[in-house]
């Protein structure tokens, strides 16, 4: 799960890269991996990489089976989020430096507790482990618990109990430790 691990580039990775690039203020992005070369540019006339040495930003991009954990490369990237008027409930605010978002693995209704009246999975300030269950996402009466995916302290719970969250929406902010 560490960014230093060598693994195959997937279509999802490319999609994520395009995403990050679109949300960034960078003019060009150039990446070589697995014999694959990717060049993204905001300059329509650009055809060859002008900065072949520029590497992928030091973002630990991982797609865990449990939740999408994205460490922002820079606050500006995380802050830009989506520009759609009604998009991504609660995903608008920037993620503080050194903290990490647990994002919705799929669209669904967000629940803080396993059932009505039961204690919540987590509270702000709580120390959690990689396998700690942090919330429940429901789609058409199918309830799926979401695991943290990383160790740290809960700093913020962004999603609201009983409300729909979109795919990739920021649910919870963790300060890793």
């Amino acid at each position: 799960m560490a960014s230093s691990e060598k693994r195959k580039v997937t279509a999802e990775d490319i999609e994520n890269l395009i995403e990050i690039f679109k949300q960034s203020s960078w003019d060009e992005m150039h990446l070589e991996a697995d014999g694959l070369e990717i060049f993204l540019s905001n300059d329509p006339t650009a055809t060859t990489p002008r900065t072949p040495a520029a590497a992928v930003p030091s973002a630990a991009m991982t797609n865990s089976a449990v939740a999408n954990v994205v460490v922002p490369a820079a606050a500006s990237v995380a802050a830009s989020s989506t520009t759609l008027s009604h998009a991504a409930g609660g995903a608008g605010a920037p993620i503080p430096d050194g903290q990490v978002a647990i994002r919705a693995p799929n669209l669904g209704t967000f629940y803080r507790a396993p059932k009505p009246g039961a204690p919540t999975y987590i509270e702000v300030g709580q120390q959690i482990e990689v396998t700690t269950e942090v919330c429940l996402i429901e789609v058409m009466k199918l309830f799926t618990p979401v695991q943290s995916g990383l160790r740290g302290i809960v700093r913020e719970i962004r999603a609201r109990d009983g409300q729909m969250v979109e795919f990739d929406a920021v649910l919870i902010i963790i300060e890793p430790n």
Partner: protein
Amino acid sequence: MPISRVLSVNRGEIAARVVRAAHALGIETVQAVSMADRESRAAQLADRTVVIGPAASRLSYLDANLLVHTALQTGCDALHPGYGFLSEREHLARLCDEHGIIFIGPAAETIAALGDKLKAKAIARAAGVPLVPGTERIATVNDAVKAGEELGYPVLIKASAGGGGRGMFIARGPDDIVASFDKASNEAMEAFGDGTMYMERYVENARHVEVQVFGDGSGKVLHFGERDCSIQRRYQKVFEEAPCAAMPPALRRQLHESAVNLVASLKYRNAGTVEFLYDIDRQAIYFIEVNARIQVEHPVSEQVTGYDLVQLQFQIAGGEPLRWTQDQIPVTRHAIECRLNAEDPYRNFKPSPGRITRWVPPQGAGIRLDSHCYADYLVPPFYDSMIGKLIVTAASREECVRRLQVALEKFVVEGLTTNLPLLKFIATHPDFAANQLNTRWLEQILLPAFEATQE
């Protein structure tokens, strides 16, 4: 009960079309998008956009549970499926029904019945709609010759148990049957352990003709004329036009009646298309299938009749009756649509997604463009390659072809490769102007000629 808020669950041009039609009727819109479509035209137009999943269709546009969950959570009372994806899945229609969401399309059981090829043919037969004439099992050469006389040559003789062409042959006269029947029957016996044969008309020279129909669920059905979609590559339509100028009036009447009778027998609700093979040599039509959704090529029917079919979908789904009589839907003009794709016609139609840097569509009399694209739009690589539909309308086919040529000539798209050169080549080909073509014309005549221009 009129619809007040709709979830649009498709993408590309049809999503933008659906959102605009809803807005024109005062219906609020929520657009479901994948991560890759967050900056799409439909997302920009809709009152609200919801990211339902990643780019992969399987985890977004193809997940019925996600769609209905979203509809329920965003307060939608209806769902518009567009075309493709889940638009003809009984499951989605039924899930909507179960949760009180109006599915903008036919009833779930209608979708199910028409989606089963054998059932659909039985329904057509019961409604008196012509199918490709054929026989029951044929035992002897003599029976085969007799049946051949009845069906008219050429005929296709096939093994009942067969498949893959074994034991199959085409007979252009009784001599061919005498020469080959026993041999083919033996072949079938060897291959399948069963030498029984049957026979059907062989249609060499055909057009693909389809009728746009609308029902209001009460049994009342109206048609909006027919479309000729004979220009196809690998069963993908490239050009579509209305009306089918090559068809004589008497046959056209039979075509329309067949289509209307078929869907009326189902008390069909909402938009549908009844597809036929038009046998040019025998001047006959044969039922193929019913598409239980709005189709890509619906705009040509809108252009020649003056009705907005997507708005009509919303109205019917909202409980309004079909208010008109058939004579109030005259076909008074000619329209041609061609599909602009992000693909390279010189490299075996390889998809060519990417960012559009320049987008200057033609405009003027009779020119309509249904597209979700704009300058600076990134055509994502995850979906089909259609980036727009150019629809041209005029008083006559001749004038329409001329306008189409001019419109294509003016169309500027830069930043990615498109099939525009092929569309221009088709539009200026003498066979197209003369309307001398069939379903094989594009692959057999046009594409070789087009490729020759590259040498």
